[in-house]
């Protein structure tokens, strides 16, 4: 059976959602049209408004509806501490874990030449400008522990070092909580030994 043009287009659009294949997209489209037309209209409005109203924070690039996000304007956050992460999801993960009271900077990716991603794509000019002018004392490089994440952390550290003296740190890597050495992969184990901490 072939779909009418509008239905086919809706199904195509739904397929961009994570975890949604052609079958589920078709089910969703039919559900929206048949069973919940009013809610579907609300969904369409919500998507449009979110697209129009949500942008990137002028200071940290996290998603926000105001020029500066709530994390950047919250006076209780420690303004001398800046944590650089790859995605808004990383901010959410660190916030959910609790314990961190500084601010963030979101790159939206990592340096990856074969994916066409270079420094200009990661907002590094904004980061440099921010670090040059704000009273930041320490920048935590919390990019992923992948080849791209490591390369990005190194690149940013070189850039920031050239601006002014600054404490730069990298998130630790090693054996996870609850982890057993026997089951830890060799690379992680090597890193864990190399990055061992003084035992007080």
């Amino acid at each position: 059976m072939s779909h009418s043009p509008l239905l086919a287009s809706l199904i195509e659009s739904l397929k961009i959602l994570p975890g949604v294949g052609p079958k589920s997209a078709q089910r969703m489209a039919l559900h929206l049209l048949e069973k919940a037309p009013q809610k579907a209209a609300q969904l369409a409005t919500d998507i449009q408004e979110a697209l129009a109203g949500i942008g990137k924070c002028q200071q940290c690039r996290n998603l926000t509806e105001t020029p500066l996000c709530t994390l950047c304007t919250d006076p209780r956050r420690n303004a001398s501490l800046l944590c650089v992460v790859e995605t808004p999801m990383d901010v959410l993960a660190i916030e959910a874990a609790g314990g961190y009271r500084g601010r963030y900077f979101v790159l939206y990716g990592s340096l990856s030449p074969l994916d066409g991603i270079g420094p200009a794509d990661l907002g590094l000019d904004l980061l440099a400008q921010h670090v040059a002018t704000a009273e930041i004392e320490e920048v935590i490089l919390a990019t992923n522990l992948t080849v791209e994440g490591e390369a990005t952390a190194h690149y940013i550290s070189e850039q920031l070092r050239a601006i002014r003296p600054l404490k730069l740190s990298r998130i630790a890597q090693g054996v996870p909580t609850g982890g057993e050495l026997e089951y830890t992969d060799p690379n992680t184990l090597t890193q864990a030994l190399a990055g061992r901490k003084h035992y007080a």
Partner: protein
Amino acid sequence: MSTALQPALVLRTRPFRETSLLVDIFSRDAGRLHLIARGAKAVRRTRSAKSSGPAPLQSFQEFQMGWRGKSDLQTLTAAEPGPVLLTRPDRLVIGMYLNELLFYLLGEADPHPPLYALYTQTLAQLDADAPLELLLRTFELELFAALGYAIDLSQDLAGNPLRQDQCYQYAPEAGLHPAPANSPNALAGAALLSLHQHGPQDPTALRAAKRLCRTQLERLLGGRTLKSREWYRQAAPPMRKIST
């Protein structure tokens, strides 16, 4: 039928559908291949404290890989992790430069075992603080040769052996020809000979080698610019001292 496991490194991975990865590899015996690793993304996400699980597919680590299928998109069936060859954060961008070269210039399923050996060796030497320029030029020259675009450093266009005291120009389609020392991109014969004999390299020789390789690369890449080189050039002063 799966192939027997053979050494390979990852050049690039891309997410595919919800849980899979598209993986471009450079294998020792089958050359550059485009594979699908089903479930590989899920593996990366759910690796927990207790399960060692399959190692994430990443560049600069040698794997023993197997695959099957005969279409242009074969399926990765095994990837047993081996040694990580390059970890130095300041040299990762150089490794990425090598990956870009291999990705764009190698034909698919075109085996180059000697180049593979040089690639792994070069990565290891990058990690070990070897002088950069000679390492890169050696790799580039070998790559040209593997692709069938070797630069003949033993003789000029007319078939005469290169002379220490003569300068040369390189014509991409043809080869080296004698030229006055003040001509654009003139290369000193002494520098070319020294490069040819893998002899000790002085800065003049290395500059000449770089110009030579750059000319050849521009031709092979057909106007494509390499992101890693762009990124490298934009790097802060401490990194700018060395160059690809």
